[in-house]
Every structure is written in C-alpha cells, then in structure tokens.
C-alpha cells in the first residue's frame, strides 16, 4: 500500500481530528526534501530530527497508543544538542543626549580644580553593547545652610559640621567622595528663617572657597523667594559654572534663567512628573536664549514605595523619546535621591501597621532606600544623583561605575564561579 501524499494532506487529516501528536508511529523508506524557493535554510532542529529518522532505519508501523511516561527518558531520547547561535541586533537611536559640563577651571574663568561632564548618551543607560556610555553618572552630596532635622542614620555623619557650611561641604568631598556638592539655601524660606538673598550669596561664596569641586546651588523651594535668592547666588558665583537649582513653571523662572545666563551657569529645569510640562519649560528656556549645553532637567524623584514607579517611568519615557529624536527632552537628568528619606521605611523605628512583620533596625533600612531609589532612576536614565547618606552615595557610585565600565576599575570583585552559590556554605544572616 505504498502511496504518495503531500504534507498538506496529512496536516489536513490531523487537523480534522484534532490530533497534534502521534505516538509510536514508525516510518519506513526514503525521505526526500525539497526546499522552498528562496533558499530557506533547514532549521537545525528539523535537520537533526530527519537525521534521526533516517538513521533509525526500517521499521513497520504499529498504529497508535496512548502516550506514556518513559521510564528512562534520557537514554530513550538519545538526543544531540541542537547547536544554535545566539544573535541579537544592536539598537541604534537617532537622538543623542546633550553633553553638559558643570564647573569651570581657571582656564575657563572659574576656580574649580576639575569639572564634571554628564550626558552625551546615544543609548539607554549602561547599554554599552549598543553604544558606549560616554560619561558615568555623578554624585553630588547635599549640605544645607543651617542645621536641619535628619533621620538618625544620616544625622550621625553630619552632626559635627551642621553649624558650619564650609566644613560641611569639605566633609562631603574629603570623606564621602562627592563629585560635586549641593548647597541648599533653605534658610531663605520666609516660613523658616527668611534669610536675605545677600546672606545666601555669602553662603555660596563660602562653599566655593571651601571646596574645589563643581557645586550645585539650590534654593529653598519657595517659589516667591527663590528667584531673588538664586539671582544673588548666581551673581556671587560668577564664572564658576554652577548648576542653579532650579527653574520651575510655578515661579518667575525667567529671572533665574536670566541670572544663570548672565553669570555663566547651567540651569536645572524642574517639573513634577509631567513629561509635557518638562517639554514646555525647556522650550521656554530655549526661547530665552539658554543654550542647550546649559540645561539639565529634573523630572522629580519619587521614592521607593512612594511613587518610584511614576518617577522611573517618567524618566525612562523621557529618555527614550529623547533618543528617538525629541530634542526638547534630550538633556542629562538629575535626581534628588535624598528624597528617599521621606519614606517612613527609611527612618521609622517600627511599623505603624500592627500586622506587619518586624521591620528590623531603621539604620539598616534607610541607606538601602536611598540606594534603591538612586540606582533605579539611574537605570531609567538618571545622570546625576543628589544624595546624603555616605554609604548610599558610595554604593550608587560603585555600581554605576561598574555598569559604566569605568576604565582601569580595580573593582572587579573577587574571582568567583557564578554557579558556586548553590554550594556556598556561608551561614551568616
């Protein structure tokens, strides 16, 4: 009963009876394959399958039986590994993030010993397999112009310098390895101390004297007072190419942007988790004549557990649309990671919720909240992190340097065999 049928015939029959597999069917005779036009390569899996059929040789069909669990499957299968090459294309984007330099050395009319450059990406953060990230993210450590309330885990590190802003800034650089220092002029807030703009300018001078790294100048966040304060600060820091934080839509941003322009600073364009508002504000700044290389954006940092998902996606979306060509979003991104300390898990002694499992010591939780908030936003597109806990700053620095692939990094970790975790015998914890 030798006859010739086509595959399509068989497939039709099988479909008709809803058969997707036949067990214990043996095949006898020759098999000829004709490849489709266009030279479709036979997938290795099929080639192998056919080979195994052919080598199985002659046999007589015995009908069909119910599928059974094989007893010694490995041998019975007698499979060879189907060699397959892994391939994946690079992703190329047409956009590029603006490269922005903060700080000016004497060559450029400033007094900084070094500058910091961020941005320039042509791919997502740390996607070096697409395009090598040009600059690693940087860390700016916060200081304030007056003693402030801090979570216990942070306070210990700053208690000795809180009364002296110069010492505070120095400590950030000397002990905590800050790439930059941010001075927050919070005492100028009318509801706090209402310090004058002139005093604020003096504070800025003091910080510039104390440290030689580039600095970020932050207002108090009071939209009515900040323009005046930041204007005075920009003037006092003439030529130092500071990052002025920040211009917002709900204040007289023009005054701040103008001051930054006049005195040679970079401006931080801050919006609240709103991609359209960010575009709008950036366009206003372009209109005022702020050059592209003078803009850094801050799309708002929400903390782990308190909106980090929004902040993450907001930044990721901005970065992707910038890479796709949206030039009004193609700027380095700054993240206020210190916000993490607002999460109650970062500082509260015990859970306020009775049914929660034990929270453990707050001092262990806090830094990790700051680390996770920073790193997560770094993976989304953050180029610069304003941070506070020394351990958190160091950890975010270390991991971002590794992912960046810092040249000559000795920090290769130990030579471990990845699979050895299975038999790792440590019992700590």
């Amino acid at each position, binding site marked *: 009963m030798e006859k010739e049928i086509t595959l399509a015939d068989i497939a039709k029959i099988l479909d008709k009876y809803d058969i997707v597999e036949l067990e214990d069917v043996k095949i006898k005779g020759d098999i000829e394959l004709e490849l489709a036009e266009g030279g479709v390569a036979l997938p290795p899996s099929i080639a192998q399958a056919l080979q195994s059929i052919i080598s199985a040789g002659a046999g007589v069909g015995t009908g069909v039986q119910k599928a059974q669990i094989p007893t010694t499957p490995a041998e019975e299968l007698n499979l060879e590994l189907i060699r397959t090459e892994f391939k994946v294309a690079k992703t190329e984007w047409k956009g590029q993030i603006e490269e922005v330099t903060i700080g000016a050395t004497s060559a450029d009319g400033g007094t900084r010993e070094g500058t910091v450059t961020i941005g320039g990406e042509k791919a997502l953060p740390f996607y070096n397999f697409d395009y090598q990230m040009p600059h690693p993210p940087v860390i700016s450590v916060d200081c304030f112009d007056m003693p402030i309330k801090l979570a216990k885990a942070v306070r210990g590190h700053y208690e000795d310098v809180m009364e002296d802003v110069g010492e505070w800034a120095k400590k950030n650089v000397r002990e905590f390895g800050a790439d930059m220092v941010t001075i927050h002029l919070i005492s100028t807030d009318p509801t706090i101390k209402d310090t004058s703009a002139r005093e604020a300018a003096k504070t800025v001078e003091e910080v510039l004297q104390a440290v030689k790294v580039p600095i970020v100048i932050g207002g108090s966040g009071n939209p009515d007072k900040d323009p005046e304060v930041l204007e005075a600060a920009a003037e006092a820091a003439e030529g130092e190419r500071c990052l002025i934080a920040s211009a917002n839509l709900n204040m007289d941003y023009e005054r701040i942007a103008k001051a930054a322009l006049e005195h040679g600073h970079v401006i931080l364009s801050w919006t609240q988790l709103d991609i359209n508002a960010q575009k709008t504000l950036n366009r206003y700044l372009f209109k005022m004549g702020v050059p592209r290389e003078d803009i850094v954006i801050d799309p708002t940092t929400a903390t*782990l557990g*308190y909106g980090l998902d929004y902040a993450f996606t907001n930044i990721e979306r901005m970065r992707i649309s910038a890479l796709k060509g949206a030039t009004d979003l193609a700027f380095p991104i700054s993240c206020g990671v210190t916000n993490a300390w607002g999460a109650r898990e970062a500082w509260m002694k015990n859970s306020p919720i009775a049914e929660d499992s034990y929270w453990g010591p707050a001092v262990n939780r806090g830094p990790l909240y700051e680390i996770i908030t920073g790193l997560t936003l770094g993976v989304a597109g953050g180029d610069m992190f304003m941070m506070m806990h020394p351990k958190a700053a160091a950890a975010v620095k270390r991991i971002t340097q590794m992912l960046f692939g810092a040249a000559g990094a000795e920090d290769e970790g130990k030579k471990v065999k990845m699979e050895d975790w299975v038999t790792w015998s440590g019992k700590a914890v």
Partner: protein
Amino acid sequence: MEKKVVMQIIKRIGKCVRKILFYSPFDKEQIAGLDENVKETNKNLFQNVNWCNEGGHEEMKISSPMEIWKYLPGTNCGKCGEKTCLAFASLLIEREKNLKECPPLFEPKYAEKGKKLAELLAPEVREVEIGIGDKARKIGGEDVMYRHERTFFNRTALVYDVWDTMKEEELRARVREITDWQKFYVGEFLKVDAIAVRSVSGEAKTFADCVKLAAEETDFPLVLCSFNAKVIEEGLKEVSDRKPLIYAADKDTWKEFLGFAKKYKVPVALFSPDLDMLNSLAVTFSSAGVEGIVLDPGTYPAGKGLKETFSRFVRIRRAGIIEGNKGLAYPLMSVPMSAWMDNDGDKAENALESSYWEAIIADLFIIKYADIMILHSIEPHSLIPERTLAANIYTDPRRPVSVEPGLREVGNPTEKSPLFVTTNFALTYYTVESDISSNKIDSYLMVVDSEGIGVESAVAGGQLNAENFKDALESFRVEDKVKHKTLVIPGLAARLSGETEDVTGWTVLVGPRDSGRIPGWMEKNWPPEGVA
C-alpha cells in the same frame, strides 16, 4: 522519539519545506479510529515549539478588542459571564479572562478561529508556572521591553534560600520566617514567593531529607538547586507532585535534566553564561517537548562580570520580544545571592555589606528582565525594599494615579471624631487610610483634589492650597457631619495652616509629617480644648 518529531515536522514544516515524499504506514481509516484519549493527552503539545525560526513579529501583536472580537463566535451567548463577545474580548487583552472561559470557541466550527486566537494572544515570553494550588506562581509571560508600553504582567518571583546542611529546627524556623513574612502596602499585604533548597552537602539523601522538611513546613513553591543530577532526582522524588522548579541543567547534565522534566513534568532551569550554549539548550529542550523552561544566564556579582551579566539579560529579552527568537523567549532567572560569595558574606561582619550588594543586584534585575530570582538575606532591611521595588516596577502604569476626592469615614466616626485631610494621590490616600484604620481610630478623612499629587509636592507645586481646603469642606458638606470645626492637616502642609484658618474659618491643627505617627499625635493632641 522519532515518530513524535516527524509529526511535529508535519505540523510545522509547511513553512520551510514545500513537499515531502512519504511512505505512509497507515491510512485515513486508521486515523479516524484514534482513541479520544490520545487527542486529549496530546493537545497543546506543540503549540509553542518554534521550528522554523520565523523571525517573530511577522504577525502584528493584537492591540484592540475589535481584532480579537473577529475571532470570537460573535453570538453574545453570555456563557463567559460577559454580556457580549466584545466585552469578553477586552478582558482577554488584559488577561483578566482566559480563552477557556468561552466554551463555544471549542466547538468544531470555531476550532480554527480558536486556535488562531490562542496564537495571537500568546505572550511574547512564555509563561511558566511553578508550584501548585493557591501559592503557585506564574513567571514570564511578558510582552514588552518597557513598562510604559503596556505593563509588565508577572512580578519577579522572589525566592529565598535554605540549604541542606542546616539543622532541622533551624531549617523549619527559616522556612516559616520566609513563608510568614508580610508587609502592608497600598491596600494589601506584600509577601514573597518561593523557597529555594540548595544542596550544599552534595549528598542525595541529605538533600532529599531537606527538601522533604521544607515541603512539610510550607506550601510555597520550591526551587531545587544542584548541578548534580542524582541529587536533584532524589529531591524531586520527594516533591514531584508540587511542581518544583529544578535548577539547573548545564552543558554537561542537560540530558538527565531533560529526562526529569519529561518524566516528572516539572519546569527546569537551564544554566549557561555562554549564550550560544543557552540558546542551544533551550531549543533542544523545547524540541523535546519541554515547555516549562527557565533560563539562567549567570549572575556575576561585581565588576566587568556584572556589567556583562546586565548585557546578557537585556540582550536575551530583546531577542525574545523584539526579534521574536522563540528559542530564548523564556522566563529569566537571576541570582543576586552571588553577592555573598564576593563579599565574604560567611563572616558575620560582612553580612550587612553582602545583603546591601545583594539588594543592589536584585534592583538591577527586577528592573531589567529577571522573572525569578534567588536571594539569601531574609533580614527585614532586605525584604522590605526588594519586595516593594518588585511591586512598584510591576504595577500597571495605566492604573489611575488618583482616587476620587470626597469625605471618607474610617471606622465609626461621630460628630466629635477627628477630621484628617489628605490628598487624592492614590499612594498617599491608601497609606493614610490604612494608618488610621489599622490603629482603629474612628475618624473622617477628607480627600482633597490635589490633581493626584502627593502632599509635599502638591504644596510646593501649588496644587494643594487653602482654597482647595475650603472648596472641599463646602462641596463635601463636612459641617453636616463634623461639629467641632477643627481640621487636622498633614505635617508636610504645615505652611498652609495660617492661610487655611483665614480662608475657611475652621481651626487648623497640624498633624504629624508621617501619618504613621497619627496614633502618637492623637494621644497628645486629641481631643483639643472645646471638642471634648
């Protein structure tokens, strides 16, 4: 084996090979007489095998309910529980309903459409289930590279380890601790997902005993970890009915593991940092009919190795989702626990450091594509952020940011109960609400429209101001319920207190900066003079 392969070829080969000359040992009559059982047993066996490497994405992924509706019976019979087929279609897209819930679709006349629909609805990354019953966890099943493109579906499963050199009591206690851990977050208790049992001893019997103990102590899914096939099989015998994930087949042991996966019908993890090898293993397993595949491309804990690990995760997922390489479109496993080896975590003084580094690696791979991960630290400072991050990244970004403004009652408030104010940012609202209710404070909670922004930002951005407080008090007719005309505003909105008093005429009390401190605040401040 070869027969099965042949039938697979027949089903798939049309796209690759035009015609095959075939000497058939059976005829149509014989096929017609097939046992019904065979059909049952063999259903779905191949639906996911990719033979022809068809370049994926040939077919447009479904994006609108109308496209799905075309494949449904269109009778609006209501058997699925929905009034119309179109309503059912939109739930299918969101994976809130399953095709099986439309019985007519499985009638012969719709079978063709049903099959097509199943293909169209299949996620880009295969979904694999580990464990059984309530606690079973689906992993994988993802469709997008970025959560804003739609959403990530199956949150990274967090698996914490025990090992077979632990003493019995120690082991039981650790398993219980992992199983019982919980933390309240946005209206629900977060829990972790599974337990990994590691073979440290290398002894099959020791491992089997340990697996048995762990299984007695918990109904969580289990991951059995050893590169020694004999050890795995002994452990597997104890719990094969629990559908554990077995870890891991590598280039040397894959045949044995493939056998276990088929014999015991359990999902299996494949390990290889060499992606050609990993791809080869995956294709080999799927060709052999194994569906429950998880890929571990290796997690190097530091330096260049970690950088390369990151690259492997991204590129594998890209191959699966963007390039439609079905051979690698499986759930990915990461092992942040490797941090402990790098930091000499076995010394007590390094434990904190190791747990931090472990959380950092976990952070990276929760974001970038691990569907399951193995972790070691079960200290609260690790569990809380790790589990919270997984919740955040896997939250549906299309979920509304805000809740309805209005006056809520917490417990059984009277006209003398305190009136708290918060914003309509969902996270803030749920946090405050749970803080008050879990501490059993009968009160009113006035939810003010801050355009879905949290307190601190809304005060800074002007979305929360004295005027909104006034509008809220009036439009919710708060005076009808609260007689004391005293308003407790969030500590973070303290700067609005004076103006609010002026504008509303109500007495303003400034509450704590964190609503978790409301109970303590109440002791000192409530009731104020004149209210009692």
